[in-house]
Each structure stands twice: as structure tokens, then as C-alpha cells.
């Protein structure tokens, strides 16, 4: 019985030592991870959703959704982008999902995933196929650089309405700009 007790104690000390050693190694060799864009926007911390009383929403998603929603309003008023986003202004019945609701969710999911969210994923088409009229019948025509520039300008206007700091806006802009090669197909 005494032998079992000694063996158990020995095993406990050995395990504790091993974990302590691992901790030290981690501290000395692993640099602290750079916070993602999503984390800097508030991350996964749950906050009250100002648009939906009694509901909680991740702070990072709330920030991105604000920019997306404002940008969609700007895009809807931009006649240069009308051919690409006509569905936004099509009136639907009460049993149907409006273009605004669908686009808001889809774009917010996309930006949240791209910014580093762990709880939201984008399940739509990849950017190349989504913007290829031969593969996506909902793409009216291939986008050109002018349309993409107009889209970025509208997002900047939307972001400014939400007082997004310049450094964050720069990163969001860079994120969108990185998609130019996939989106512009004319």
C-alpha cells in the first residue's frame, strides 16, 4: 500500500514538473500572438445589440455590421453600381428575404471570417466564382476596375459614418483591395 502511495506521489511530482517545464519553454520561445483585426474591433466579447433589444452580439461583429449596413445604403444610392446591386432595391413580400437583409448577413459573415472571427464563417461562393457571370447567374456582368473602385469608395463612406479609426479603415481597405484580382474579371 505504501509503495502505491509513493508511486502516486512520484507520478504527480513528475507531471507537475513536466507541465512547469512546458510553461517555461512557451514563455521563452513563443511570442505573444498579434491580435487579429476582429479582436481589435472588440472580438468575441458579447455586448448588447443596440438594434435588437435583449439580444447580445459579439463586439467585433457589431462593428463590422455597422460598416457593412452603412455601406449598403451608400451602394444603393450609387447609380454607378446600380447594375450590380439592383436586387437591393427590389421590394419583396413579407414572406421573402429582402436583398438588404441577405447582403448584410453575407457581407458581415465574409468580413468577420476574413478579419479573424472564430464563431462566424462565410458559406457563400468563393470570390472568383461569385463574380463570374458564367458561374453565377446572379452576377449581372463582369465587374471592371471602375466598379471596384466605386465599391471601395462607398465602403469608405460607410466606414466614416461609423467613425472607424483610420488605421482600422486602412486594414479593411487593404482586405478589400486584396480581393480585386478575384472580383475584377473584365
Amino acid at each position, binding site marked *: 500500500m505504501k509503495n502505491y502511495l509513493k508511486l502516486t506521489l512520484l507520478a504527480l511530482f513528475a507531471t507537475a514538473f513536466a507541465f512547469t517545464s512546458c510553461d517555461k519553454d512557451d514563455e521563452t520561445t513563443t511570442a505573444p500572438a498579434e491580435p487579429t483585426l476582429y479582436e481589435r474591433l472588440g472580438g*468575441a466579447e*458579447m455586448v448588447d*445589440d443596440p*438594434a*435588437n433589444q*435583449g*439580444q*447580445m*452580439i*459579439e463586439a467585433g*461583429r457589431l462593428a463590422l*455590421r455597422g460598416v457593412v*449596413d*452603412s455601406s*449598403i*445604403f*451608400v451602394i*444603393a*444610392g*450609387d*447609380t454607378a453600381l*446600380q*447594375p*450590380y*446591386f*439592383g*436586387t*437591393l*432595391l*427590389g*421590394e*419583396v*413580400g*413579407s*414572406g*421573402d*428575404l*429582402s*436583398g*438588404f*437583409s*441577405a*447582403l*448584410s*448577413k*453575407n*457581407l*458581415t459573415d465574409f468580413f468577420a471570417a476574413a478579419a479573424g472571427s472564430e*464563431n*462566424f464563417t462565410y*458559406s*457563400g*461562393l468563393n470570390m472568383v466564382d*461569385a*463574380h463570374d457571370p458564367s458561374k*453565377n*447567374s*446572379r*452576377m*449581372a456582368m463582369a465587374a471592371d476596375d471602375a466598379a471596384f473602385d466605386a465599391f471601395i469608395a462607398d465602403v469608405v463612406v460607410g466606414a466614416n459614418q461609423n467613425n472607424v479609426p483610420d488605421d482600422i479603415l486602412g486594414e479593411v481597405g487593404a482586405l478589400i483591395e486584396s480581393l480585386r484580382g478575384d472580383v475584377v474579371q473584365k
Partner: protein
Amino acid sequence: MNKKYLLRGLAVLGGILGLFVITLGVHIYMVTRPNDQHHMNWQLSRIDFEEQPDSLTASLAVKTLKGIEGVKHVYLNQKAGTLVYGFETGKLDAQMVFEEFKTKGDFKAKPYIPLASNLSNGCPVIDKTSLTYRLGVFFQNLFS
């Protein structure tokens, strides 16, 4: 006999307590889970000015539109002469909003009505056969 009734009573109480705990758990989950359905029933519409409005007209138009009950958000593109607004489907429609807008101010403007071709292919991310879209419609109908 009394013991039997006592046990039955405790079982019933336990069942009720269990249901309460489950209900509370579901409620907490529904309230705190990552969720984003706040504007599933939002509709966007636009009013186009016949010519670019001056700043006074633009300001008055925005104020007038914002003053219509049920209109949630307004964005003016003064250069393009477009006024975009959001409202809740089922409570208002674009025609009602426009008529009230015209009644409250003598604006030289008309409602924008997209062409059928725009509606059939006007947005690359909305695939009406997708699971996301169908789930969205399901939740909208559930809570409307």
C-alpha cells in the same frame, strides 16, 4: 400511503424544476449566443430627385423622410440626387412612404423602381437556392 404521495409530489416538483432549468438554459443560450437576425425584415427603397437637389432641399428631404413613422435609416447622395431609406416590411411599403413624403413636401422626385432584369441578376451574393437564404426566410417567417 403518505410516503407514496410525498414521493409523487417530489417527482412532480422535480419535473417542474427540471423543465424550468431547461427553459432557463435555452433562454440564456438564445440571448447570449452569437446571433445576428436584427434586420431580417428590413427593406431598402430609393427616391430619385429629378435634378440634383440644393443643400436646403436635401436637408429638408432627409428630415421629412426621417419623420415618417417606420422609416429606420436614411442616406442621401446629394451629387447623384438619390435618397435611400430602410423600413420594416409588413408595416410599410415603398409606395406608402413615397406618398407621405410627397404630401409633406413639394419635392420634384419619383420612387425608384428597379427593372425586372436588375431583380433577376442584381446581386452576386444572393443565391435563392442556398441553405443560408432558405434559413433566413425560415427565421423571418418564424418571427414575423
